[in-house]
């Protein structure tokens, strides 16, 4: 039987890209997941994108903040998508 979660099972011990709610993105090595998409990632880099509107010009100012975390449990309900590592071969 093939199911969508197979893709994630094959990404265990690989670096994955995880898009979350509130314009948060994570990149890290996947060690564990369950059917809710709760996860444990290691060597995580989190990128938070914020957009603010300049009051005078009305231009949107996009800023990105990144931080690193050694080991992180992520609750599945904030996860939007999971992408396996890009293969360059």
């Amino acid at each position, binding site marked *: 039987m093939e199911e969508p979660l197979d893709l994630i099972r094959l990404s265990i011990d690989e670096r994955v890209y995880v898009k979350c709610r509130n314009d948060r993105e994570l990149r890290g090595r996947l060690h564990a997941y369950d059917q809710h998409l709760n996860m444990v990632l290691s060597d995580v880099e989190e990128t938070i994108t914020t957009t603010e509107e300049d009051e005078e010009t009305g231009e949107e100012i996009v800023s990105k903040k990144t931080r690193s975390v050694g080991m992180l*449990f992520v609750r599945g309900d*904030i996860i939007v998508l999971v992408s396996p590592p890009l293969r360059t071969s």
Partner: protein
Amino acid sequence: MLFYSFFKTLVGKEVAVELKNDVILTGTLHSVDQYLNIKLLTVNVVNQDRYPQLTSLKNCFIRGSVVRYVQIDPKDVDTELLQDATRKENSPQVGGGALMEDKK
């Protein structure tokens, strides 16, 4: 049940729980249940100036659903064991899905 078991192995360890309202609480993990509710002891609020109402917090119960992240010390985690447990729990042969499959 995988993460319930996982958090049970972390009881007594220092963790940082980041909530969906951006509050970050650090403390000792006292206990966890099947909903991944968490009880923390000796709580410290990161960025306390922003949340003065939380200054007096010492012990607390956190509803599992409001958790965004739990930061863990990498040396408290056996990643090999975790990966094996994940593969076992999510292996295609296990579970009730077979009930719906065609018999050949």
